[in-house]
């Protein structure tokens, strides 16, 4: 009985001592890898091979300048540039999981029409997911905001505004747009 009590006491004391002794190994730093750091819109004017790229990062947001009454083909890219030496192209993953993803553009620019392009990515249900779109700019001088969304697991891919799709927003970035 006394032996037992001594044992328990002994265990406790040893424990408190060892606890005091274990120190000095500092925790290692975690450099968070944001899975997506950059959204790029690559604009190609119809009938031209020249490409203009507009970039959204948390530090730098480009504006979009469009010529009036012009047709553009626009491809969207999602990149992980948290390690500049090993840039990850997340677009490939989105395309691989095309059934659970949808890109949606919302525009406040009067007369700007954004539609899925003929060479867009089509999911297994035959729905285009707007990785490649055609933008038809208005004939008049306008300005506004275009917001690009990447939606994960939308309830439906049929709709005309963000509210219609449900799902979880993976990306939501806004660009100032000028039509000149």
């Amino acid at each position: 009985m006394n032996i037992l009590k001594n044992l328990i006491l002994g265990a406790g004391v040893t424990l408190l001592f060892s606890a005091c002794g274990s120190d000095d190994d500092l925790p290692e730093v975690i450099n968070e890898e944001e899975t997506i750091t950059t959204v790029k819109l690559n604009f190609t004017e119809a009938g031209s091979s020249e490409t203009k790229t507009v970039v959204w990062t948390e530090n730098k947001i480009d504006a979009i300048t469009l010529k009036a009454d012009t047709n553009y083909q626009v491809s969207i890219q999602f990149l992980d540039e948290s390690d500049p030496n090993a840039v990850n192209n997340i677009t490939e993953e989105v395309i691989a999981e095309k059934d659970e993803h949808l890109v949606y553009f919302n525009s406040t620019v009067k007369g700007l029409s954004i539609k899925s392009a003929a060479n867009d990515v089509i999911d297994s249900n035959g729905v285009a997911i707007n990785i490649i779109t055609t933008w038809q700019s208005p004939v008049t001088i306008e300005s506004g905001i275009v917001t690009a969304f990447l939606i994960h697991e939308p309830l439906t891919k049929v709709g005309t505004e963000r509210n219609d799709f449900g799902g979880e927003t993976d990306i939501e970035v806004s660009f100032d747009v000028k039509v000149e």
Partner: protein
Amino acid sequence: MKRFACVLVFLLGNGMLIAQDCNQVLIGQVIDFHDGLPLEDARISFNNLVFTTDNEGRFRIENLCPTAYAFTVTHQDCITQVKTIDVSKTSEIDFYLEHHYTDLDQVDISTSNGKNVTNSLSEDKLSSQDIENYSSLSLGDALKEVSGVTSLSTGNTIVKPVIQGLHSSRIIIMNNGVRQEDQEWGEEHAPNVDINAFNQIKIIKGAGALQYGGNAIGGVVVAENKLTTLRDTIFGSAGFAASSNGRGTASNATVNIGLSDCWSARAQGTLKYFGDSEAPDYVLSNTGHREQSFSFGTGYSNFQFGIEGYYSFYNATQGILRASHIGNVGDLVRAIKSDRPLIEEDFTYAINEPKQKTQHHLAKLKAYNRFRNLGKLELQYALQVNQRKEFDIRRGEDRDKASLDLELITHALESSFLFDANENFKKTAGVQLTYQTNTPNPRTGVRRLIPDYEKYTAGVYAISEISLYDNLKADLGIRYDYIHLDAKKFYKKDFWEARGYDQEFPNLIIRDEGNQWLTNPIYEYHSIAASAGVKYTYADNNKLLFNASYAMRAPNPTELFSDGLHHSAAIIELGRLDLDQEKALKFSFTSEHKNLFDFLSVKIAPYLSKIEDYKLLEPTGLELTIRGAFPVWEYRQTDALLYGVDVDLSASLTNNWSVASAFSYIRGQDEILNEDLPQMPAPVFRSTLTYAVSQLELSLINTTALKQSHFPNNNFEVEFTENQELTTEVVDISSPPPGYTLFDLMANYTLTLKNPQDFRVGLSVTNIFNTSYRDYLNRQRYYADALGRNISIHLNLKF
């Protein structure tokens, strides 16, 4: 055929003396020691007089002289037991008879079961039958049976108890004598315990039970299951439940062994397997859960000396509603506006991200020794290892990695001495030492929400119980805790400066790590707690209780250090390094009136609590990320005033019909900003109508929660480009959902297979009318309705 035998265990009630000749009254109950059920038709005889208990196991013996009587207590074919009681000192006594199904050599007497922890605070108990009814659910669900106890939940499986408006770090859960350390600070961290591991649960609403800890300003939940004190016996139970909602099952089994040489053992295990739950109108996608747990204990005990070892393991995987993992504040706005979840899938048993995986190991060794004419010394060591992994929806290589991976290890060594030689002045003094480490796994690739830390605490306490008069008892307690917290926390340099920490805490930096500082915040706290109260017993065991308590609570690691994104709430949560201790002063009063007009029992318990430096989380701004905008929530400390009342009524209408009703109301106010506190439970009524005839018991239960009309306005505005327009939207996160009323039905039929009343079949239907509702204290109320109808079948076999 084994002989059906019983053992008599007694518990002394409260002394009451009316100094006149032969008009003493002895009242009480005969209760099954094992499952807490009252025993009807038990016979109590003395001097050739025989009394039998009613259907609630109650008896009342009048015209006794103030002297000692030898009472003989029997029930069915139990061995007859004799107990001598001095009626001049005792007016109420509960006899505990134990059913078990083997021969008994020896009668064992225990005085511990059923005893109150404090004299002056209202205590509520859940019996083993209550626990059986909740075997497929959680501790938090079962505790809602008690007035004044509500729950803070994340979906339907992560359920935390809220005692009179306070939860998480403000509550202590005692898991078989060990203070549960399972990262209880988090609102979406449910207690990592299996309800089936216990056969009795007590709730103490207040800080007065100082032996458990000084910082339980909300209260204490004491869940325990003692080793059998019976000899030469083996008995146990096996339970099975199947539920329609979640389409799953829960099974559990317990075996108790008592050997003749004072050794006993107990083993218990539970398995739960559930798929997606369903609201009335849709599947709650990804809300399945799995749980496996077991416990084993063995010990030697005689009156003088005892030693016990105990180990329990809990392992759970819980899905989090898919639609509650939201991308940004725009999704939150859409979720609030939508009647349906924004992500729905077909029913499945699969559990995907977001999910939680938790494991809890508890091992303890405990010994006691009694010293003649002095008291009882107890010594206990406990080790707890808690592992929590939380999985968010991630991409690429990180897809299957946890976003949060914490290991919390707690060693606790404690000793207490109970001086009980003087029956009228009992004292307990004790000391508790704990050492705790928290180690986040750096492989998550996500910055640590809770940092690495080491914590030492040392507490000393003294409590005493004084019988001032036969009908007036007082208790008094004081406790001091020293807390030393040594954390290693990384801060982003821009954040460190933006918060002004570079000015306020320049000495905390110990290493430069590129764009982050490694800092070493060290905190020391001295916490004082004190409690004093009285209990006055009058006329037929009516009681008045009054308690005043003061307690301090040191800030928890979330409040100090949290720094990151919570997907379930779509908030960025920020702690503060400059928080002080909470200081709570609480007054509670309880009036318990039994046998009013011979059929009614009433308990009214108002309380008032003033908490200085009360911590709360509130939105302070928006932060723009590539996922869109996120509200930033920060901790703030304020002075709070909480007050409310818990009311319990019960009445026996006829021999078969009875009704019980509980009501609780609470208000919480921020006294500095003169506004309401967030997350205060809405007024709630819970009423049960029971019809019992021989082996059948039918209960209809109504739960009605009113709409919470007192809440702070934490709404904020965000800008949207929607409908081809740039609009400003108010995000209404504050408005509570409407009130609701739900009906449940519970039927139990007890059969005799091999031994009397050894098999129980139960059928329960909860939310009979499949009502769609949302609860103010469910963190998923923005995203989906609560559970729809659930039909369950319960089978329970005792052997």
